């Protein structure tokens, strides 16, 4: 992550800890949209994603005094978002339901989906939602949000080795699912 950006975040957190509420608005303007994107992509639900953003910044405001300057603010905010998304997924069983619906999906289904709807985004969503949630999360953090391997591992609370393995399996599975429609996607 950009060092000057992280320094700016730390300034906001110090101001917040000192009781300056305007720093929260600055933090939301800076990170709110990317957290909204991450939560929307992970939960596949924009309404609930707004709740996640609300929760993240409420937590940031309430726990600003506990935040340790050695931790990156952006990573810390994403950790809160990730944990809250996991709670939502567990409580609603939404992900499990989605996964189970798509467990039986095969290459011909995806090819047919692409041919009939001509919507590559839907096909990619289907393939992403058929992945185990930890693999999907790794792919989103690494390639959509642009976190490094160590940052993504910190957010998910796993070792870098475990993260590498999850990413590798996720990519392999995605490549397999999308192979029949590769020409249309690239």
């Amino acid at each position, binding site marked *: 992550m950009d060092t000057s950006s992280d320094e700016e975040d730390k300034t906001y957190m110090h101001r917040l800890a000192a009781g300056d*509420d305007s720093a*929260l*608005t600055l933090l*939301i*303007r800076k990170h*709110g*949209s*990317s957290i*909204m*994107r991450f939560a*929307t*992509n992970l939960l596949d639900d924009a*309404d*609930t994603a*707004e*709740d996640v*953003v*609300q*929760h993240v*910044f*409420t937590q*940031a*405001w*309430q726990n600003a005094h506990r935040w340790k300057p050695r931790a990156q603010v952006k990573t810390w905010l994403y950790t809160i978002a990730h944990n809250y998304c996991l709670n939502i997924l567990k409580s609603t069983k939404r992900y499990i339901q989605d996964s189970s619906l798509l467990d039986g999906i095969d290459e011909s289904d995806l090819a047919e989906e692409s041919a009939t709807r001509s919507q590559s*985004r839907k096909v*990619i969503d289907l393939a*992403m939602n058929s992945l185990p949630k930890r693999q999907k999360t790794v*792919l*989103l953090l*690494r*390639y*959509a*949000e*642009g976190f490094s391997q160590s940052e993504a591992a910190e957010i998910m609370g796993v070792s870098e080795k475990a993260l590498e393995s999850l990413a590798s399996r996720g*990519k392999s599975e*995605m*490549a397999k699912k*999308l*192979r029949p429609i*590769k020409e249309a*996607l*690239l």
Partner: protein
Amino acid sequence: MNDSELESLLAETYGQDFPLDDVLVQRIASRATTPVLAFTRKSSFKWLALAASLTCVTIGVGSGMYAATTEIQIVETTTQDLEQIFTNQYDREFL
């Protein structure tokens, strides 16, 4: 599809900007700094709506049961009165 092609595809598909408008930013900030308001998130409204609906259903069912019970009492009372009148009349005619 190789790794770099897939990574580009994921970045392109899921990494697009997701702008938050200023109204939403202000709303999130004001709710976050007001713990009571933080509770009134969208999902909370759904629960409040459900609770309100259940309350209406309970009141409706309760009122219906009360009305039905009252009607039964009226019918029972009227039947008893009629029996009494009939009995009195019968007694007067035959005694």
